[in-house]
């Protein structure tokens, strides 16, 4: 301690001398050479120069006095012998940044060092980030309010830094600075103020006009930066001075070539992942140097904080591997296959039957209907796309099937399917005034013109209906196309939605345009009535499934409410059909119709109330709780498993997703697949998206998906996830495990 005290006193003496020198010396600007020659002979402490070889440090203040309670700036002024360097906050491959250990009077606090942009110091194959010649590191000091006017305070501390040419020397210096306290606003010190001004100008600016993100795909980050317009024009000419300096030491490979280049109006910088990174960070922080002087020192720099998007898998990851063309192809195929999904198939079968009847009654009508149906489908897809885009613009995290996360929507769908099934079973016929659903085409109509107009409207509405009932399903290819589309500009998103609709409508339009094809179908007859009745049962099965989803979302009480609403709906239909039909007499008919409407309204009220119910805690409230071998997914649990290097399989699922349920029952929960997971030491997790969950939506977005099912297999270690197809077979899963996860683990 005594020794320290002696050193401190000596340094105080030194600083007094230095202060005198500073006051008498001409003002120097940074980069204009060394102070050592002038200062050193005057320093009595030069005897202790082994403490700070090849360099010097002192603490200087911008102002001559400090005002109680208002913060001010001081600076650690480092001067280095020519050719020697010291380091930035991230020193690069080797080295250590300067640091200050403060000893401040009571109530004072010091901020972080504000670092200017560094330059690249290369000793192949290694690279450091640092500074030559002279450096002023700014620190903000906050004094307490209750200081007496006229007092003096002493700021003290120890600076540590490393000074290197290729070999390095640790250096240290005791710092001290005495300031007068004054209530008057502090006047700038003309000796030091220019140094501070220059140092401020060299700080990287934080400018929100520079937007950026980074796409990571092993082993590169593609850092994409949009510079504001005037600067972009300057930079366009020459990117050779551009370099990105990462703030953290273990994110990028400092020595790797960055190859800055333009992709349209976006600057793309390729950053190789550090060999010492613990994982992929959420954000890459750093400084982008945009201009340098002849000696390589930065003259303009901007702070960058780029959110990282981790590319998922080979089929769905980036615009480079899935271009617009491929996305559109996938969208079309996905739309086409949507027709075969169990929720859409019955509705569309009816549509085909409709063609048959109309081709009998009105030649050429089929073509018009096909067009109307296609328009209905397209319009619905546009609405869906627009809603998704609007929600996304509002910052909501949504994906395909998001509407089924709303119990009310699920309940309304259940009632709708129930009504359709009743109609198919012949319990009633949709009246003319009734909304024309797909099944309405079987009614008898009096005149040909009315027929034509009505059936066209009906075709349009059945196109809408087909799309609405299709939403619970994700067809193969669709997930890939939509996942891609949702991260693209709105125009491309809408284009993908359009093509998806076109794909779904294509079989009908094709059928309606080729009378030959229709002729090859058997002639209308009693078999159509039978088929209609048979098709009611898939619809009723859909009702059962929707009720199950509704039950998971709202609990047993909510489910009872929905069943009550279905009962009332059935009753309303019966009342209306029994006494409200066109064969009934007018007064009774009107009363019956009003009663039916009132009962229907009661059903709706019951449904709305049921949808608001919340499942009692502890109840089986999720599709995930059905099996014990599946862990509950959370971002933390997944990250922990991945850090431990365990292979991990994540099942992104939802109760309302039919393909998810089928895959789970037919593939994932079978003995063979479960055994294989165990043998390969794979941790299995289920991420249940039945209700809205931003964490899951975020995780899906990272995989560039927006819908379920998604099956992600992390091979363990740092490998990229492998995404399995949305229609699984045991072979696909077993093959993937065999290929990507070595079984000796």
């Amino acid at each position, binding site marked *: 301690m005594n020794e320290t005290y002696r050193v401190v006193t000596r340094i105080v003496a030194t600083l007094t001398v230095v202060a005198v020198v500073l006051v008498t010396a001409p003002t120097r600007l940074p980069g204009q050479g060394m102070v050592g020659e002038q200062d050193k002979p005057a320093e009595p402490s030069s005897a202790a120069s082994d403490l700070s070889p090849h360099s010097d440090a002192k603490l200087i203040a911008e102002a001559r006095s400090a005002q109680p309670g208002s913060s001010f700036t001081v600076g650690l002024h480092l001067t280095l012998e020519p050719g020697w360097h010291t380091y930035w906050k991230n020193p690069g491959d080797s080295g250590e940044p300067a640091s200050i250990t403060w000893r401040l009077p009571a109530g004072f606090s010091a901020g972080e060092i504000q670092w200017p942009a560094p330059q690249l110091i290369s000793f192949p194959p290694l690279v450091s980030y640092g500074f030559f010649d002279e450096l002023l590191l700014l620190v903000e000091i906050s004094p307490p309010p209750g200081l007496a006017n006229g007092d003096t305070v002493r700021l003290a501390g120890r600076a540590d830094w490393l000074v290197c040419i290729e*070999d390095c020397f640790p250096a240290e210096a005791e710092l001290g600075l005495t300031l007068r306290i004054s209530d008057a606003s502090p006047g700038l010190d003309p000796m030091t103020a220019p140094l501070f001004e220059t140092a401020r100008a060299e700080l990287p600016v934080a400018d929100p006009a520079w937007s950026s993100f980074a796409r990571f795909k092993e082993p590169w980050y593609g850092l994409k930066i949009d510079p504001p317009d005037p600067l972009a024009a300057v930079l366009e000419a020459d990117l050779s001075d551009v370099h990105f300096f990462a703030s953290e030491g273990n994110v990028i490979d400092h020595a790797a070539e960055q190859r800055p280049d333009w992709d349209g109006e976006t600057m793309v910088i390729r950053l*190789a992942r550090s060999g010492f990174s613990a994982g992929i960070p959420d954000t890459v922080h750093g400084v982008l140097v945009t201009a340098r002087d002849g000696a390589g020192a930065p003259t303009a720099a901007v702070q960058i904080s780029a959110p990282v998007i981790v590319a998922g898998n*080979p089929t769905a990851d980036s615009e480079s591997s899935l271009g617009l063309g491929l996305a559109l192809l996938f969208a079309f195929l996905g739309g086409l296959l949507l027709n075969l999904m169990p929720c859409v198939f019955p509705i569309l079968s009816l549509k085909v039957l409709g063609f048959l009847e109309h081709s009998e009654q009105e030649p050429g009508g089929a073509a018009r209907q096909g067009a109307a149906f296609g328009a209905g489908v397209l319009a619905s897809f546009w609405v869906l796309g627009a809603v998704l885009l609007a929600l996304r613009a509002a910052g909501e995290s949504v994906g395909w099937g998001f509407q089924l996360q709303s119990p009310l929507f699920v309940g309304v769908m259940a009632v709708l399917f129930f009504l359709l099934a009743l109609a198919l079973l012949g319990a009633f016929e949709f009246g003319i005034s009734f909304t024309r659903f797909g099944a309405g085409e079987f009614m008898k109509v009096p005149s040909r013109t009315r027929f034509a107009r009505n059936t066209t409207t009906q075709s349009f509405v059945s196109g809408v209906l087909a799309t609405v009932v299709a939403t619970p399903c994700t067809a193969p290819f669709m997930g890939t196309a939509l996942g891609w589309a949702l991260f693209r500009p709105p125009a491309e998103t809408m284009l993908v939605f359009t093509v998806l609709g076109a794909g779904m409508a294509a079989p009908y339009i094709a059928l309606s345009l080729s009378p030959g094809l229709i002729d090859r179908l058997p002639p209308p007859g009693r078999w159509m009535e039978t088929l209609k009745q048979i098709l009611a049962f898939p619809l009723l099965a859909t009702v059962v499934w929707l009720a199950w989803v509704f039950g998971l979302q709202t609990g047993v009480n909510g489910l009872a409410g929905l069943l009550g609403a279905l009962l009332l709906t059935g009753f309303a239909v019966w009342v209306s059909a029994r006494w409200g039909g066109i064969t009934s007499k007018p007064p009774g008919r009107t009363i019956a119709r009003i009663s039916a409407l009132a009962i229907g309204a009661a059903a709706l009220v019951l449904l709305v109330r049921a949808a608001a119910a919340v499942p009692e805690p502890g109840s089986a409230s999720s599709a995930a709780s059905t099996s014990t071998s599946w862990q509950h997914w959370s971002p933390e649990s997944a990250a922990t498993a991945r850090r431990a290097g365990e292979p991990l399989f994540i099942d992104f699922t939802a109760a309302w997703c039919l393909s998810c349920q089928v895959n789970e029952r037919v593939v994932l929960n079978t003995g063979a697949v479960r055994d294989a997971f165990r043998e390969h030491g794979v941790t299995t997790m289920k991420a249940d998206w039945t209700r809205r969950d931003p964490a899951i939506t975020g995780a899906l977005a990272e995989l560039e998906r927006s819908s379920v099912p998604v099956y992600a297999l992390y091979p363990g*270690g740092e490998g990229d996830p492998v995404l399995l197809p949305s229609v699984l077979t045991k072979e696909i899963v077993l093959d993937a495990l065999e290929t990507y996860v070595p079984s000796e683990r």
Partner: protein
Amino acid sequence: MHRSRIPNRTIIATVLAAAALLPGQHARAQSASPSIGAPAPEFSLPDTYGAEHALADYRGEWVVLEWLNYGCPYVKKHYNSQNMQNLQAKYGDRGVKWLAIVSSAPGKQGYYEPDEMNEMNEQKGQKALAVLLDPTGDVGKMYNAQTTPQMVIIDPEGTLLYNGAIDDKPSSRPASLEGAHNYLAAALDEAMSGEPVSVPTTKPYGCSVKYPS
């Protein structure tokens, strides 16, 4: 209707699986660093007495590689405090084969002729099994050795388990050893008791390895 059939689920699945793989297998570019969990790069280097040490000779043993430069202040921190020698002795007693590697080029800091190096080792109380000479820097570059010290752990199967800093205090001040968390010791303890290494890599700190210019 009777002509329309739902295609067999397996057919769809097969077609889709094929389609999913269509845009090509994932091309994994080579990173500069050897991968943790992968086989450690093979090498063979002479020690200060001229004896060759090949990594393959140590299959079946736990191996630690330490990048060494006696002139480096960060290395001095660990040797002058006996911290490094204590680790070498502790794990040497437990059967770990500890190899110090000098990747300094002739004429650069940390490079010594074999005899001089033996004297230095004597002076410092070096307790590694051997000090290996890598004057071309080839082995250093193979392991992405950036700093002295830098530590590597290789398991008895020859798998790379750890590559990075010795501890979490990137400073040359001896006082920084107090309260430092030693990554190397933690990783070795975990690995040798059969547990996975929880921190398999960290950014190494210290002087740059003095590779040939």
